[in-house]
């Protein structure tokens, strides 16, 4: 009997022992039960509330609405889970993917391939939004320190507001001759010390982020196509002495995977080609550093690729070292198209 009824399965690499359909059906029943439970509890509460509000255990208030919310979430989770399990049991991976992409070829009809843009290549629209001053397009920059600065400033504001609130509270109690010595001697000094440190950190980070001026990159054509030559224009603003400035064309692979209950993303640089290097020079307000160069994408390069869990991403990386400033690194993502008719590239831009 144990051949036919196995209570548990084992994971063997990517597959499970046992009959996969039994597991899917079991999961579908589980989610259906959750959905039914949600429907029953919600309908019971609503009907009871409408027909006999006096005998209802929860009057219309926080408790009632909390139960409505919990029951509704049961219905939602159960319905979505049930639908997904039934879909995965009834259809193969290919069929589901084809349904999603609406590319089913009906029986008796020939396959049609009316593809105007390369599939699985990132959308070009965000890259062509900004026209350039010197060349056709200005690339959007990615400065990780900006997000750090914004989040840091929010934390500094919240912490200092909390410190001020505690100080007012302590002063109020002190003036009313009921001093809270624990708050005054232990809590407030700790809050002031942390507040001082994070405020100092914030101003240093702000000075670092704004002291080295913005970097812009413009390019004469988009999207980039493998094997073609392009012109690039870099402008570095600010007031500093640059020891070294370099631009590199970088390709990296990005993989997102589940590790237990976590979702992790790993990046691996697979290609780096220096495009331009600049030695020591001085930059002043109103006299930015301007560099022009040409580059060509290698013939054997992989095009940009974006799927739900994997990606091949291209970008320009600007790395600089300046006197009295920490070294900095700014990246400018680009999209690389596979070789194809020019018409497709134009269609992407329109």
């Amino acid at each position, binding site marked *: 009997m144990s051949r036919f009824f196995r209570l548990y399965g084992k994971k063997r690499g990517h597959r499970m022992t046992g009959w996969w*359909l039994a597991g899917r059906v079991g999961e579908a029943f589980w989610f259906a039960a959750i959905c039914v439970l949600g429907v029953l509890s919600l309908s019971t509460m609503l009907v009871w509330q409408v027909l006999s509000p006096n005998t209802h255990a929860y009057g219309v208030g926080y408790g009632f609405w909390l139960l409505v919310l919990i029951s509704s979430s049961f219905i939602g989770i159960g319905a979505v889970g049930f639908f997904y399990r039934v879909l995965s049991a009834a259809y*193969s*991976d*290919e*069929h589901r*993917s*084809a349904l999603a*992409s609406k*590319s*089913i*070829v009906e*029986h008796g009809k*020939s*396959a049609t*391939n009316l*593809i105007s843009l*390369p*599939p*699985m*290549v990132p959308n070009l629209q965000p890259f062509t939004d900004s026209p350039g001053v010197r060349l056709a397009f200005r690339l959007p920059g990615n400065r990780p320190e900006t997000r750090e600065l914004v989040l840091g400033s929010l934390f500094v504001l919240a912490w200092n507001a909390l410190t001020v609130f505690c100080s007012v509270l302590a002063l109020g109690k002190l003036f009313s001759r009921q001093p809270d010595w624990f708050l005054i001697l232990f809590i407030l000094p700790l809050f002031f010390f942390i507040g001082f440190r994070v405020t100092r950190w914030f101003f240093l980070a702000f000075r670092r982020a704004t002291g080295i001026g913005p970097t812009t990159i413009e390019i004469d054509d988009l999207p980039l196509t493998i094997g073609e030559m392009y012109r690039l224009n870099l402008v570095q603003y600010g007031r500093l002495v640059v020891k070294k400035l370099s631009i590199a064309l970088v*390709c990296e*692979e*990005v*993989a*997102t*995977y*589940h590790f237990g209950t976590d979702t992790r993303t*790993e990046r*691996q640089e*697979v*290609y780096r080609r220096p495009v331009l290097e600049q030695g020591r020079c001085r930059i002043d307000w109103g006299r930015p550093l301007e560099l022009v160069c040409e580059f060509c994408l*290698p013939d*054997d*390069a*992989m*095009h940009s*690729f974006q*799927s*739900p*869990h*994997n*990606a*091949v991403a291209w970008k320009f990386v600007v790395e600089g070292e300046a006197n009295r400033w920490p070294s900095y690194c700014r990246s400018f993502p680009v999209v690389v*198209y*596979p*070789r*194809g008719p020019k018409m*497709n590239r134009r269609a992407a831009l329109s």
Partner: protein
Amino acid sequence: MIQLLGFQPGYMPGDELVFQYKLVSIDPTAILAIEASVVWFTEGKGNEDLGVHFFQRLTREAITDRDFSQPQLISTLLPESPISYEGRLLKIRWCIRVRLYLNDGTDLVAQEPFYLGTVTKEL
């Protein structure tokens, strides 16, 4: 059995992929449905992604009209992307997949890999 009708299992984007499949040692009355597809899928560290370029499903009614001991010819134009790729974290593979659904609730899968494009190694 799946057979590619090209000299090499390598194609360029825009090429016509012509293949045929036939059923050997399977009773056609035991088949519930047949799905023939041209798919790409990822392998590597990230979760697997799959995309379908061509998909054809034959139900029982359509199966009874055909003789599956004879090769079933299918052709499709290959897309521009994604091309086959072998990277460090990520690999993109293309294949022809034929899936048979049998009356007893099980399914049988046969697949034939091929290359799209010329970038099949990491850079």
